[in-house]
């Protein structure tokens, strides 16, 4: 829950400019909903790397890892298990 809430708060603050939790579902596609664009995702990656001390490699930059809160949480947990 901690990872999820941190990601959620970051997205809400930096891309939706609100603290209303109800506007974003955990399985909403950032791409399909136009929430984040191609440079925004780089900022998300930077945030993830800094906040969770993991490395997002170029080949990790795929929708399955990054395109929703759920996907990011699963990705981070996998990375942390491997580390």
């Amino acid at each position, binding site marked *: 829950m901690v990872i999820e809430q941190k990601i959620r708060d970051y997205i809400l603050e930096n891309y939706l*400019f609100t603290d209303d939790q109800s506007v974003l579902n955990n399985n909403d596609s950032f*791409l399909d909903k*136009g929430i984040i664009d191609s440079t925004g995702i780089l900022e998300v990656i930077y945030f993830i790397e800094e906040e969770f001390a993991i490395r997002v490699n*170029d080949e990790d*930059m795929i929708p399955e890892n*990054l395109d929703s809160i759920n996907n990011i949480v699963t990705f981070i947990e996998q990375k942390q298990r491997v580390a």
Partner: protein
Amino acid sequence: MFYSMVQRVPEADAIIHGESRVTYEKLWNLSCSVAQYLNQQGMQKDERVSILLENSAEYVAIYYGAQAAGGVAVGLNTAAKARDLENWIRHCGATWLFANESHPELLKLLQRLDNNVKIIILGKNNNIETGNDWNSIVNIDASNFSLSKLDNPNTAATIIYTSGTTGSPKGVTLSHKNLVSNIQSILAYLKLSKNDRILNVLPFYYTYGNSVLHTHLSVGGSIILENSMMYPNRILEKIVNEKVTGFSGVPSTFALLLGRTNLRDYDLSSVRYMTQAGGPMPPAKIRQLMDNIPHIKFFVMYGQTEASARLTYLPPEQLFNKIGSIGKPIPGVEIEIRDEYDNIVCGREIGEICARGNNIMLGYWEDMDATNKVIKNGWLHTGDLAHQDADGYIYIDGRSSEMIKTGANRISPKEIEEIITEIPQVQEAVVVGVPDEILGQIIKAVIVIRQNNVLKKLDVQSYCKNNLADYKVPKIIEFTNEIPKTSSGKIQRFKLQ
């Protein structure tokens, strides 16, 4: 030009989008159905048909169908908010709107529009009742349709809005002759053929994407659509899988590819050419790209919407000799570098790029004043400062205006300032572009808060997001007691950058 390809390569793929492959014949039939529908509904010549759709075969069919019916196609920026969209539709007096039901601003937009705009909604759910059914339109028999309404190449074919929604939006109005002239010039140097398959990430509602669309469909080539650069590895996978021969981008497109992929991991042998426009690409990035894919022809290009897209190109064989240059005029275009008195400058002196040719716009829609400020005696004054070397190659030295160029978008600071100033707690706001490695520039707002008021960064960004396209929301916000000005009161923007 598209119709001649329909006759030559009817079974070739025109538009590929995900799993969908639309042939030239099918695209033509769909366009004719749209045109027939508009005629049946009594559309008059030169009526404006606005289109609010992402890049898709449907977008293309409506665009060409509107023109075939004698109308003017107006592609709308899908990232814009309802307020902007309404302003553009009203400004050009559009009487038609084709829109996707899933557009997040659609319901708000429909509430703002007058009843004289006929609405056609595309989508699966049919939740919005407008009385005009897309599914019926696509089945209209248009086998007897003729292109008789396309009888005057000098009439308006399309309007492209470049900036500014508050106050006076600028609708660049291009004729059929403008578009055809520019297509023919571009084909002459890109040497496109029916064997070319371009992967397109550029929006059709902007001039660069619009140009990619027309040039490739004019030779029987295929356009593979990807509507986002968010996952650049997926772009490269698609280039490999679809055996793509061409790719076009703005500097931020290539920055993403170079920064977040390893190009050498992909077999890009099918790629014959890449083109780059939409702002200066750092020479170091050009070298890095060519180190990774040395076999391609890389075309640096320059232009403006007001020029139907293209004004100059740098021949690939000169890329390293003349790196940093935007090249020389394309066929059919004349360029002069002029000083503030409209005289041609000498030698390497810096002046304004001025251009003449059949590709120069008819003007800004219903705005002779703005048109006359940029087109003087048939010459387009671009607002870009440049000089020429001894061989006649042109190098950009900057812009003479305050426009912010971020990614592929050209933004007027004024329109963002006007929005921010609507916030009650704001006394004054100035918006400038500051350098960014990926985007070229990002937007910074400097704000003076009214005395005894409180305002947070999130409040400003939230208000901007609700009223402007997302890419216009300032990334940097500073609060200050005073905006720097000259003794005559002119804002000194350079001190804020």
